[in-house]
């Protein structure tokens, strides 16, 4: 079964609002990444947070990681219509393998 599950599955907001997506995972991890996928396209890396980090920022993105709860959140502030996409978390499990396991994704729609 997949390591990560995103919540919610779908999210609709207005431009200018903040969007928060959550990712829960099942086993220990070395690090966690967030990716974005525009419809029909390949995935693009957004941000990586290591297991010893709690928060990371990149532009309008803020990622938090709570290893005790096995969860991460991605916050997009002041969203734009161009942020409309699917967002996935991906984990590098802490099992001495080189796997990169993706979750099921959150589909974000930002209305102008």
């Amino acid at each position, binding site marked *: *079964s*997949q390591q990560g599950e995103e919540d919610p599955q779908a999210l609709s907001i207005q431009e200018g609002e903040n969007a928060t997506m959550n990712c829960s995972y099942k086993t220990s991890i*070395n*690090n966690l*990444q967030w*990716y974005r996928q525009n419809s*029909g*396209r*390949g*995935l*693009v*890396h957004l941000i*990586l947070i290591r297991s010893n980090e709690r928060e990371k920022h990149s532009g309008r993105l803020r990622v938090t990681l709570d290893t005790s709860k096995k969860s991460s959140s991605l916050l997009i502030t002041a969203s734009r219509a161009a942020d409309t996409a699917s967002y*996935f978390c*991906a984990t*590098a499990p*802490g099992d*001495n*393998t*080189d*796997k*990169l*396991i*993706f*979750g*099921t*994704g959150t589909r974000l729609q930002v209305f102008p």
Partner: protein
Amino acid sequence: DAGITQSPRYKITETGRQVTLMCHQTWSHSYMFWYRQDLGHGLRLIYYSAAADITDKGEVPDGYVVSRSKTENFPLTLESATRSQTSVYFCASSEEAGRLATEAFFGQGTRLTVV
């Protein structure tokens, strides 16, 4: 062209046929991955490779074969295609993985239909 490219972009094949999806990267990244993406399942890892001649099973390896004789190429073969293998397939590469993971770069995907 620099980057990671997949071919073909679209493929229709018949049940029982063998089909190979190609993946080529120009960065000499050590790690390469194959995923399939199906509605409701996100991306599921099929196989991955840490270097030439080193491959490992992912979450859903059954029915697939990979090889990696050269660092830059990581072909995925469906030995006898089934309708359940109809999907969009993504290849990715990264400089590091696991504990020291770095960002992965994805190809544009191959949409495979098995009829």
